[in-house]
């Protein structure tokens, strides 16, 4: 096994393409977590986003409509979550898990209702790669980074925008304050509740889009397990990236690389049973989490409901 096995341009290119759902989902999740909301429904939201995207595109024949439907589904679920967390001060993990189950069920149900009984499985058109003009001609980097489909470029833009908003605008400052010290923020006039709801809406849209990327860029179909644990991985990536979009995106690339590597390794290594190679990404994720946990400081108020009337 030579070193070039691990640096094969087609492998790197695949890794970049596979990182899109992780980048988008982790960006959305970290927006929510920065404001204090811990959303564990994310895996369900990714699945529902994928279903919404596929079904809307299938029914209306438009990819754009599919993306819109996916984002909308994410916004709605996140808004429901936010309401339970903010207005009713329910335990966020419990509500999140319940919503996760709900989203899984809704995805299959909607699929059955919209697709109905057919003789052939339904498919939609997938996005084809777009070669960027100048940079696309660079020797190796061009093929890896700039021969990708539109959602790859979108996710890069999302990372930049989220970073700018969080760390360079007063809105971002207020959002982070709501997640670090809601009591103090409240006393200086920051509307903690509205900010949390807003971050949930924005984050939910991104998570829905992450789901949309699965049928639109990879398969052209929807299957029940299409999310494949990516929502949970995104949760971990937020911690890995220390609640910054750039850090999470870096982790996403790393994880997507390991995921893509697994198939390359499967072809080369005969002795290892394939199932153990399949365990690789998940075991890797656990070790990454454990290492990332040291020194990781979550937003102080993450997961805690803010009760204005409560005594400290």
């Amino acid at each position, binding site marked *: 096994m030579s070193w070039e096995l691990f640096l094969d341009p087609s492998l790197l290119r695949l890794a970049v393409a596979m990182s899109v759902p992780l980048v988008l989902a982790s960006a959305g999740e970290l927006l929510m977590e920065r404001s204090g909301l811990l959303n564990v429904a994310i895996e369900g939201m990714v699945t529902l986003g994928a279903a919404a995207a596929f079904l809307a595109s299938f029914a209306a024949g438009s990819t754009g409509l599919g993306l819109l439907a996916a984002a909308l589904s994410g916004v709605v679920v996140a808004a429901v979550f936010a309401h339970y967390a903010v207005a009713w001060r329910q335990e966020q993990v419990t509500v999140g898990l319940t919503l996760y189950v709900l989203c899984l069920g809704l995805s299959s149900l909607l699929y059955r209702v919209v697709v109905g009984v057919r*003789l*052939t499985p339904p498919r939609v058109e997938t996005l084809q790669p777009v070669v960027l003009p100048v940079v696309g001609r660079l020797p190796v980097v061009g093929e890896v980074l700039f021969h990708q489909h539109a959602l790859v470029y979108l996710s890069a833009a999302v990372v930049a925008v989220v970073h700018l908003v969080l760390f360079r605008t007063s809105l971002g400052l207020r959002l982070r304050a709501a997640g670090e010290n809601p009591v103090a923020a409240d006393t200086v006039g920051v509307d903690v509740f509205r900010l949390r709801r807003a971050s949930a809406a924005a984050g939910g849209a991104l998570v829905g889009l992450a789901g949309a990327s699965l049928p639109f860029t*990879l398969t052209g179909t929807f299957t029940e397990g299409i999310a494949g644990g990516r929502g949970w991985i995104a949760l971990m990536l937020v911690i890995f990236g220390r609640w910054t979009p750039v850090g999470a995106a870096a982790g996403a690339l790393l994880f997507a690389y390991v995921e893509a590597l697994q198939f390359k390794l499967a072809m080369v290594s005969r002795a290892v049973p394939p199932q153990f190679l399949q365990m690789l990404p998940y075991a890797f994720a656990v070790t990454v989490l454990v290492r990332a946990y040291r020194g990781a400081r979550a937003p102080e108020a993450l997961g805690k409901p803010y009760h204005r009337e409560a005594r400290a």
Partner: protein
Amino acid sequence: MRRLLWLLLAVLVVAGPSGAGPARPRMAMILPGVIQDADFNAVGYQALKEVQSTTGVQTGHSEQVAVADAERVAREYLGAGYSIVAFHGGQYLTIVQKLAPLFPDATFIMESSGQIPNLPGNVWNIGRKFYEGFYVLGVLGALATRSNKIGYIAGIRLPDFVASLNAVFQAVGKYNPRAEVLYTFVGDQNDPVKARQAAESQIAAGVDFIVISVNLGTVGVIEAARAARRPVLLTTFYTDKSSYAPQHFTTSLVSNFGKPYVEVVRQILAGRRSGYYEMRPGAGFGLTPPRNVPPEVSRRVQEVWRAVVLRQERIEEVTDRIVERR
């Protein structure tokens, strides 16, 4: 609600007298997935319909029956008077072995990958032998490949698929010894994402002919083929999926479960309540005429197919390990 009761009463009155004479036998089929998958379950359902139209047996079916629920579903059919219960899938083996002695008046049909010893006297066993068909797919790959790299993508590493892979190795070793076979077991028959990733890896390694051995995962491989820079040829099995990507498909190993099922049901109606039917090329498996390959190749492959049907081509069935031949 009262109208419902009257309706029920009326139905019973009408249906009542017809129960006096010898009742028409009824057959139920239990399927693991949905019948509109255009794949394994669809062909099972087709077989059921064929049984009904050719033998007159009344049929019912249940889809998406998980192994954990199959016993209860079967018991419900048996309790409702169905005298033949068929299980489309080898994962229901335990249930058949459990129920058959408990319901000696009913006859059971089950599928497997070979003859199962010591089955009760009211069980018919359909053994599906794919590997011979995959041998021919391997021959097609050996003759059609230009990069001399052939790919094989399967899901779970079942003995059936191991045997099929070994058959592909044998075919390539005999008809194009210079070619290499790259294989991947993605872990799931129905995961298009994993299938796509595996296909991308194989194509990146130079594969230009892929023998597909997954079910719903097939669309993932198709997407990878469409995104590839070089032409990539594909084969599938169970159903002809060439309409998904006409320029990439060469042939399909199509399965006609109607053949074994009609034959078995006929035997049951004639009084023979147990036996073994081997489903193989020519007896349930067929090959669609190869496309997108030179006519010479197509002709040769069909020759080999005929030889396989007549058992004139020697193919070894190896299910426990993968034997790579160069």
